[in-house]
């Protein structure tokens, strides 16, 4: 068999599915049988050139113009990985498929880490081999288009992402931050989950007179009520079982600084009363203590819950709402400022390129950008950031193309429904709670970037439903058993469409 030559018989220019002259494939392997097999079975989809050594292969690569390379990982004159590095130096857009007898070898893993397109185990199966080569050629052609968004723009620090965008809605946010940052008043930041409420809080802090002092953040929904009270106000030794020593709370610790209270709607009435007092008088007592303490803390609160409705329902103190609501900054959902998406992509792309050390990454193809800017982003900026990071991690090519994007964005998977107070509507009936492994697998298959939240939501819905069934729908008893406030339970009942009839069920 001749080496370094095109083995296909001379014939009129073949047209492939690629709607251009036949693509070309270089096969480098010292096994004559592999070269013959490739030539025989892959010639319908590409012009095949074969080489039996690394030296010949690299020389041929430099002479010709190839759309993909099929490379043996162990060659007689040079290690396949070293050959791969030379191929990349010559043309980093060429997809390289490794072939290996030892599929589980460290070398194969290392090849993938270096950015190989894929690897295939020997003995070769003709049909998967043909599919893989077609995919590589397709990838080569897609990634050869000019990038629409470059990955080389400067990425600033994390807080800088807040200031990306020139949409009217965001300009209003920037103006509001500028107006109130230096005024020592409480601020309420409102917006859907993932819109960047904490970033607004940090910006308010950074531009305030307190910028040299402490900034602390507490997520009120993350702690049970008694622990939240202790976290915020501290406790005295022996205040409750397990309080073995005095603990200083955040209000005391943050004296002179700024305290960010996230999810302020998820607070028990007792905690609401104590927070109100701090807002009014800057005074409080530690849990289990009698000594009145004073503090000088600026409070920035955030929520995505309908506090006015909660006041009407008797679940939230009206006086606390008015105290918090002196100045409100409303963050728009990303779907209302889609014109900012390209700038955000550019920012996150540059950040991820640097963080994941992908110097060869050039950017996103125009098709990928079009899909990203057409999507409605139910998880807002946080979701966009997660998607871009995931794409940067997944891609082995210099240009991110639509095939790397999650199915929900490309339209191959139904998007998850969203409402302002309802993050995710699980698609499976969760009453039995047995579908968690399948749910996680599906999300993995869909390349979801929200697996944790969706899995936790599935679990939460199951737990709440089960407890409500146990209490025959008695919410006070269920809240007690769950260790959450009645308000939080009602919120979840609404979110998950739980119907409180004689048999507690989920509305479909």
């Amino acid at each position, binding site marked *: 068999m001749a080496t370094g030559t095109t083995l296909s018989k001379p014939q009129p220019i073949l047209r492939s599915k690629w709607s251009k002259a036949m693509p070309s494939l270089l096969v480098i392997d*010292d*096994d*004559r*049988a*592999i070269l*013959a*097999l490739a030539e*025989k*079975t892959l010639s319908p989809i590409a012009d095949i050139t074969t080489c039996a050594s690394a030296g010949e292969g690299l020389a041929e690569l430099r002479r010709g113009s190839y759309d993909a390379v099929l490379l043996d990982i*162990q060659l*007689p004159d040079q290690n396949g990985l070293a050959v791969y590095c030379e191929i990349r130096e010559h043309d980093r857009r060429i997809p390289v498929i490794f072939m290996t*007898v*030892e599929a589980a070898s460290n070398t194969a893993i290392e090849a993938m880490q270096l950015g190989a397109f894929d690897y295939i185990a*020997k*003995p*070769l*199966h*003709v*049909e998967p081999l043909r599919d893989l080569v077609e995919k590589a050629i397709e990838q080569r052609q897609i990634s050869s288009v000019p990038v629409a968004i470059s990955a080389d723009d400067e990425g600033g620090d994390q807080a800088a992402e807040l200031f990306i965008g020139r949409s009217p809605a965001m300009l209003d946010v920037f103006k509001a931050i500028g107006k109130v940052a230096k005024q020592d008043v409480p601020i309420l930041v409102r917006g859907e989950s993932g819109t960047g409420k904490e970033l607004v809080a940090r910006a308010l802090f950074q531009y305030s007179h307190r910028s040299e002092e402490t900034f602390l953040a507490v997520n009120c929904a993350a702690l049970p009520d008694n622990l939240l009270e202790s976290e915020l106000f501290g406790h005295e030794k022996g205040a409750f079982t397990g309080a073995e020593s005095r603990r200083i709370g955040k209000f005391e610790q943050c004296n002179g600084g700024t305290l960010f209270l996230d999810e302020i709607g998820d607070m028990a009435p007792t905690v609401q009363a104590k927070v109100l007092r701090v807002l009014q008088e800057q005074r409080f007592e530690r849990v289990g203590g009698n000594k009145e303490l004073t503090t000088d803390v600026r409070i920035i609160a955030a929520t995505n819950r309908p506090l006015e409705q909660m006041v009407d329902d008797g679940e939230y103190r009206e006086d606390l709402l008015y105290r918090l609501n002196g100045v409100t900054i409303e963050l728009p959902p990303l779907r209302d400022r889609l014109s900012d998406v390209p700038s955000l992509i550019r920012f996150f792309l540059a950040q991820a390129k640097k963080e994941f050390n992908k110097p060869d990454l050039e950017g996103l193809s125009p098709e990928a950008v079009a899909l990203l800017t057409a999507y409605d982003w139910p998880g807002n900026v946080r979701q966009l950031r997660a998607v871009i990071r995931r794409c940067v991690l997944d891609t082995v090519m210099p240009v991110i193309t639509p095939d790397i994007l999650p199915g929900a964005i490309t339209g191959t998977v139904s998007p998850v429904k969203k409402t302002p107070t309802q993050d995710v509507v699980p698609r499976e009936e969760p009453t039995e709670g047995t579908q968690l492994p399948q749910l996680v697998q599906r999300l993995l298959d869909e390349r979801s970037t929200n697996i944790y939240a969706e899995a936790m939501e599935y679990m939460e819905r199951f737990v709440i439903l089960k407890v409500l069934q146990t209490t025959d729908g008695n919410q006070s008893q269920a809240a007690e058993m769950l260790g959450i406030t009645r308000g939080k339970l009602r919120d979840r009942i609404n979110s998950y469409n739980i119907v409180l009839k004689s048999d507690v069920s989920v509305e479909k």
Partner: protein
Amino acid sequence: MTESQRQRFSAALGRVAGDEEVLEMLAKIAAEDAPGLMSQLQDHIQQGELAEAAKVGHALKGLLSTFETGEPVSELQSLIDAARAGDEASATSVHASVRPQINTLVTEIDALAG
């Protein structure tokens, strides 16, 4: 290709999408190249050149795995591992036990080549 050969190499035939002509072509190449590799393997083992033995063993495994992925081809991996680990005794022992079976396989492949 006889019916018994089709049965004997049914997995290999499946890998080439049932194309008997392709399998016969591969058999011809393997039948030509395998004896030389086996001879090199024996020489390297006898001379204690284990790194070279591992390379040749790897090439032989790749060549023959087109036709057989189980024993005796899978046993070549033990030989390769022992050679890479510098364990001459094990490499020699595995080689001695696997060699007759490999010879038989190569004879079968040669017959397939026609």
